[in-house]
């Protein structure tokens, strides 16, 4: 029956076991956290045994582990992530309220990363071992190697404090510039290297010679004939980076004091708010799986050979 389904439906069904496995790992790991969850839930408030027992029953922690596990899976499947220990509010609502700042930063970083990475990657790949290539690749190495908290603070110091070109804090689009550059520089480094190597390989193919023999301009040869063949590794990199970013850029959000999912995760870990940590991990992994699925769909659009292999 599976074989007769359209490819995409088969893939969607295929993510069910992946999700199941991920959630199971999340549940398992949280079982290993030392300390009594009830004490954590009460936030260290002294309580009588009776109160503790009531709380334990309320959280379902008096049940055997397998019952807890099944209850957990059931709740995950309907998107019920429980209530946070500290806020007592539903975790799903808490996460939803913080998605926007993270998503904005992810998109901003992606934009800077793509523009910079594509331009530099192509410039380097068309003239390997030329001066642009050497300069770009050394800079890219630096970009990837420098920790984002350092780049972030440097940007704040130079452009925020000394030059006062952009605000450091706030919700506006201008406050998004510096953190986007921080993320973008990191992304661009890896992207430029990947585009460079993919382009060098593609430009040596016979079909590129054919394109030249047709009298096409170099722009057309590169942008149309080479890039579509060279783009799959960079798409993969960007997609997975994006998936990580929408789960919150932990360090960058901290440096720029942005109220996104990354800072939320740090706070949740520090206060041992288990349902919130659990909810964030489930959200992040699910987003990762979904984006992976979208990437596979994109491969098929870019490369017809992948499409016909699926059919």
């Amino acid at each position, binding site marked *: 029956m599976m074989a007769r389904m359209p490819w995409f439906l088969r893939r969607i069904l295929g993510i069910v076991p992946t999700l199941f496995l991920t959630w199971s790992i999340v549940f398992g790991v949280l079982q290993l956290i030392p300390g009594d969850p009830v004490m954590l839930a009460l936030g260290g408030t002294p309580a009588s045994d009776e109160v503790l027992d009531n709380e334990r029953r309320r959280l379902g922690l008096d049940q055997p582990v397998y019952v807890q596990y099944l209850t957990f899976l059931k709740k995950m499947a309907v998107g019920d992530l429980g209530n946070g220990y500290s806020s007592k509010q539903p975790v799903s609502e808490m996460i939803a309220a913080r998605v926007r700042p993270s998503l904005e930063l992810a998109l901003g970083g992606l934009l800077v990363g793509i523009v910079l990475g594509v331009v530099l990657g192509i410039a380097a790949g068309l003239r390997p071992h030329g001066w642009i290539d050497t300069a770009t690749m050394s800079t890219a190495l630096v970009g990837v190697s420098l920790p984002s908290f350092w780049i972030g603070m440097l940007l704040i110091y130079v452009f925020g404090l000394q030059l006062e070109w952009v605000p450091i804090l706030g919700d506006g689009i201008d406050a998004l510039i510096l953190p986007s550059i921080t993320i973008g520089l990191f992304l661009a480094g890896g992207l430029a290297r990947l585009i460079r190597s993919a382009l060098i390989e593609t430009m040596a*193919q016979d079909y590129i010679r054919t394109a030249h*023999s047709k*009298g096409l301009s170099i722009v057309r040869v590169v942008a149309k*004939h080479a890039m579509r063949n060279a783009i799959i590794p960079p798409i993969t990199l960007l997609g997975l980076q994006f998936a990580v970013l929408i789960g919150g850029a932990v360090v960058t959000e901290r440096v720029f004091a942005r109220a996104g999912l990354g800072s939320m995760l740090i706070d949740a870990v520090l206060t041992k708010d288990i349902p919130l940590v659990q909810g964030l991990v489930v959200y992040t992994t699910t987003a990762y799986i979904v984006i992976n699925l979208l990437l596979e769909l994109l491969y098929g659009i870019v490369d017809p*050979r992948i499409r016909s292999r699926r059919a």
Partner: protein
Amino acid sequence: MADAPLLSVEHLDVTMRGIPVLEDVSFQIAPGETLGLVGESGCGKSVTALSIMRLLPNPPGKIAGGRILFDGIDMTALDAAGLRAIRGDRIGMIFQEPMTSLNPVYTIGDQIGESLIVHRGMSGSAAKAETAKLLDLVGIPSARNQLGRYPHEMSGGQRQRVMIAIALACRPKLLIADEPTTALDVTVQAQILDLIGRLRVELGMAVLLITHDLGVVAEFCDRVAVMYAGRIVEEAPAAELFRRPRHRYTEALLHTMPAANPPGRKLPSISGTVPAPLDRGDGCIFAPRCGFAVPRCTAELPPLEGAPHRLRCWNPA
């Protein structure tokens, strides 16, 4: 050759990483004429073809001397825009490997129509209509339905037909075919050659056919130039060359043809190997392998002389 030549290659020298791979290569092709360029692998046939189109990757390849006049225009002096105007429009080219010469991610309709859009300024729909005609012309049936197909969905022979359609899209005056049938099955080889032969007449274009297959040349070409180790050693009208080869290399080459030998007998081969570019003395490069070499052969390079039968040999047959 009564007409002014369409293509005139004059004393072409090409180097790769500074090492000479073509030396003093000269030949002409008249409008509508077919010239076969034959020789062993590595003798410089493909480098000659790529040099004419200025498609030789540079670096490492470099045109070190000589001229390539196409319709009076010196290809070696053209800038990128000038070359683009000629490539794909007035000179079309097909390559040895149909499996890898088409872009795998675009439909064949797109790849054929692209030349028409770029050179003829056609709209998308006009190019599509013309592309369907071209596919008909190269013998791909129900052409209109085929426009949306991708290269990986076609056989090698069909892909080479698509390559021919690309090369001929703008009705070029010259077609350069670089071993167009080498990678194909024997039965398909004949079909592709027939197709090129038919289209040559229909479109009245000249053809430079590069091959190592002498049988193909005998059947297909008006004139033949034989290359050895980066130089042309003999050139003559095809019938004349096959009837009365004069260069000792050509002679030996013709003896290796299956048709020249009784069936069931092992085919003869030319003993020795082509000397490496830096191991060539002052004389004829074939001299070390030649059974008829005289002292002068190793001492002095023979010039390419004669008309219409040109020859580079001190002791010809």
